[in-house]
């Protein structure tokens, strides 16, 4: 770093580590949940850890593993992961001025680590002091290690689980997704999108069956959002109401 910074590099790293640790704590149940469900749906511990390490996106991993358990075609699983992670396009657009300052390799690594809480913390940090790579990688690194570690813990614990229904873990996934959906309720057009997606997926489930109901329902919700009048001049609506819930 050639330019002068308000705090030293070691101070940047310390702050990043601290923030990362809080994210690890709050996302631990979901990492453990993923590990347990992955085993339940036919992944080995190594495969579960590999997915957490490479995909590194909680909700999309849970969607992916759910579809995998239903023996859905691979391209459908990849497409669904892509669909669930599509919000990251908005995140990466929003943090472009920040991460764009890093040299190419560091920039590529930084975008890989761009999860919901990472995005939220980065936006918040930039309001006070310029985000440095040292701070960013310290936080993201801790979150990444914690996520993979919690996945392994869940996978180990999951293999000890007998009947998932008896201890109620089968209900965790729909409830978790319900909570995620609720996190977007302050968004423009939330209700019409929700109704279109819900009705579309339920009807498609009966008519064409799984897994097509996901694509049909999602497409219907997205089309409704595109048809309805866009929000006013709030062109900086990239901040996500779900962040608080997911990062909390």
């Amino acid at each position, binding site marked *: 770093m050639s330019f002068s910074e308000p705090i030293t590099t070691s101070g940047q790293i310390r702050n990043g580590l601290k923030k990362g640790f809080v994210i690890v704590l*709050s996302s631990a149940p979901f990492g453990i949940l993923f590990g347990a469900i992955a085993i339940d749906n*036919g*992944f080995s*511990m*190594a*495969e579960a850890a*590999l*997915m957490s390490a*490479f*995909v590194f*996106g909680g909700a*999309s991993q849970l*969607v*992916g593993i759910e579809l995998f358990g239903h023996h859905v075609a691979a391209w459908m*699983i*990849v497409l669904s*992961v*892509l669909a669930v*992670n*599509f*919000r*990251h*396009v*908005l*995140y*990466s*657009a929003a943090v472009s001025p920040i991460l*764009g300052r890093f040299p190419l390799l560091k920039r590529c690594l930084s975008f*890989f680590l761009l999860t919901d809480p990472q995005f939220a913390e980065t936006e918040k940090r930039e309001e006070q002091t310029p985000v440095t790579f040292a701070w960013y990688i310290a936080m993201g690194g801790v979150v990444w290690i914690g996520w993979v570690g919690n996945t392994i813990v869940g*996978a180990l614990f999951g*293999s000890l689980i007998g009947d998932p229904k008896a201890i109620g873990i089968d*209900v*965790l996934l729909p*409830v*978790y997704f*319900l909570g995620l*959906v*609720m*996190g*977007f309720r302050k968004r423009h057009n939330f209700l019409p*999108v*929700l109704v279109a*997606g*819900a*009705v579309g*997926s*339920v009807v498609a*489930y009966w008519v064409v069956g*799984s897994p097509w*109901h996901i694509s049909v329902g999602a*497409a219907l*919700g997205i089309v*409704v*959002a*595109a048809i309805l009048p866009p929000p006013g001049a709030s062109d900086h609506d990239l901040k996500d109401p*779900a962040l*608080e*819930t*997911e990062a*909390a």
Partner: protein
Amino acid sequence: METGMSAFSVDSQTVTLILMAAIATYATRLGGYILVNSLKRIPPRVESALNAVPAAVLVTLVAPPFVNSGWDVRIAMIAALVFGLRFPGLMVLVVGWAAVMAARHGFGIGM
């Protein structure tokens, strides 16, 4: 689970799937940056559509299970919905789990 699969066994098809999912995810995390660097501005309707993607996708994972499940799961989801209006994700998960456990073991619904 009953296949005698070891914790460290790795299936090549599964790894391929994981890598493809990883590439798709990385594409979304890089996509906005590439888009912003090439586009001057995003049309409002496109932004509205993108904005709707998470809710539109996630609700398709919630509505069919609710409709097609027994009352044990429905009770848990309704409890989670009510709690979700006030409390963060983790609490919602705990309430949903507690509700389904109460329904199954306390009231014998759905077991």
